[in-house]
């Protein structure tokens, strides 16, 4: 009974979502395959969370076609939700219950037998490194621990697809790395991951393939390296001049790079050889306060495609 269609975990065609007169999602096509790690990258308000909520079968589709595990969310909402895991952007844990009870009651919502839920809870606590906190109240946990608990909870039904909406937003760098490590392990185990993020480093680390969203539309898609190759140069030279000098200096640099971006705090020169570009800047008698060369990232792709930065 395994057919080609079944291997498509999520398929959206011309998907729209409106809230009154506001169009949050304005016609997107998405196809997520089994075992893939798929990302929606974009700034706040791009329509990522609205898309995720439709995929999670908790927000009706306004128009277009959406199939999750081959099922229509308008018809088979409960069956779809039984086979996916959801890690929402805002925590929905019961903060007055302890860590273990949060997993237990959630597992029961899926109709999983009590003994089975207890066993899975212990395994998952181990997996997210919270075994020692099993008896602690959730309100006493750090943000990173709460996020790990939410991830553990989303795995209690052994989902076919795991949806993660901004999995590390609001966490400190160390806590982010712990979460990434756990998600990477899931990916290694073949779990299909679908995540939204406005962090390019998160998208680069975790996603096999991603779409860049802006204002409810997909503006580019591909693997992180494909996107960078297609929409940016190999290297970027970043220059910072004294406050107020950027607009005046920029015209003098235009011929040194394939493309130039002036941001409020720095100038970016897109070029295949950053060191050479910086050397030429100095040859022209210009004296930046700071200069560095780095590789292009998804941030640059986004800037190129939308004219805006991701995090503002």
């Amino acid at each position, binding site marked *: 009974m395994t057919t080609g269609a079944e291997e498509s975990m999520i398929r959206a065609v011309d998907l729209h979502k409106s809230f009154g007169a506001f169009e949050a999602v304005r016609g997107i096509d998405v196809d997520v395959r089994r075992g893939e790690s798929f990302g929606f990258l974009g700034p706040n308000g791009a329509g990522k969370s609205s898309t995720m909520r439709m995929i999670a079968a908790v927000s009706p589709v306004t128009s277009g076609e959406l199939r999750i595990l081959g099922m229509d969310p308008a018809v088979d909402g*409960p*069956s779809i939700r039984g086979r996916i895991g959801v890690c929402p952007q805002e925590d*929905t844990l019961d903060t007055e219950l302890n860590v273990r009870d949060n997993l237990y009651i959630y597992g029961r919502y899926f109709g999983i037998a009590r003994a*089975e839920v207890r066993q899975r809870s212990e395994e998952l606590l181990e997996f997210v490194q919270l075994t020692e906190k099993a008896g602690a109240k959730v309100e006493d946990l750090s943000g990173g621990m709460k996020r790990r608990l939410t991830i553990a909870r989303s795995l209690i039904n052994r989902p076919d697809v795991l949806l993660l909406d901004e999995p590390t937003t609001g966490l400190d760098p160390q806590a982010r790395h712990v979460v990434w490590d756990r998600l990477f392990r899931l990916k290694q185990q073949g779990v299909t991951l679908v995540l939204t993020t406005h962090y390019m480093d998160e998208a680069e680390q975790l996603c096999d393939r991603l779409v860049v969203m802006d204002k409810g539309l997909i503006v580019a898609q591909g693997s992180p390296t494909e996107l960078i190759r297609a929409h940016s140069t190999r290297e970027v030279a970043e220059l910072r001049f004294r406050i107020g000098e950027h607009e005046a200096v920029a015209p003098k640099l235009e011929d040194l790079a394939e493309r130039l971006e002036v941001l409020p705090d720095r100038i970016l020169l897109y070029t295949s050889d950053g060191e050479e570009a910086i050397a030429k800047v100095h040859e022209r008698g210009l004296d930046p306060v700071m200069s560095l060369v780095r590789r292009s990232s998804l941030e640059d792709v986004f800037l190129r495609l939308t004219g805006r930065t991701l995090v503002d």
Partner: protein
Amino acid sequence: MELRPSAPTGPAGPTRVADRTGAFDGAGRLVDYWATVYLRTWKGSVVSSFLVPLLYILAMGVLLGGFIKGDPSKLEGATSYLAFVAPGMVAAQAMTTVFGEVTYPVMGMIKWQRIYYSMIATPLTVGDIVFAQLGFVMFRVATVCAVFLAVMSPFGVFASWWGVLVAFFVQLLIGLAFATPIFALTAAMKDESAFSLVFRLGMIPLFLFSGAFFPITNLSAAMEWFARLTPLWHGVDLTRMLVLGTVDVSMAVVHVVYLGLLAAAGWWLTVRNLQRRLVD
């Protein structure tokens, strides 16, 4: 360990969660949640749920009632003020218990802890959630009213055991008739700021003027008719006729139908309002 799920499903694949089997199944999956909540909170509710009603009985029924030598014909057939006020207070207690359960806790589950959002992310539906929560509210009403009725029994105010038994089930109906409309209201409210109005202009006037403490014939004619329209009066009158053994069948039917319709309409509205709130 095996967390992973994405292997092709087959005989060795992950066990599939059984699809929903019926209306009670979804709500049944929430029993563990509500049991956990109750085990965590019951101690805190002991004073308000069990002790305060007894203090009312003692203060109003026994001590204040000792000054009241009413003619039974003026006390709706009760032989003492205690016998008159006790059934009224049971019904009023059913109401106040419900007000406490479907205002702030519901708003907390919508806005502060967002627990409803975790529930609808699973196979549960809004209908399941409402069903289970009303079941929990009914459990609270049942325990509170059972204790209340049990404590009153030594005071010799009950006409028959079966009347009291039926009166107990009537408390559940009263509870439901208040629970569903207020649950629906809470689900539609933006935040908790209007709850103080709900309590001060809704619950307290109902508590005082719906015939629990004095016969509503003592009110002015206009006020009396107004009182007759309130759900608590229907509950109080029904409870009192059962406890005192003064059952008027046609009036009893009116009370049951009134409360039943209110409960049903409120239930429908609750599911609709919560659906709109959570699923958009």
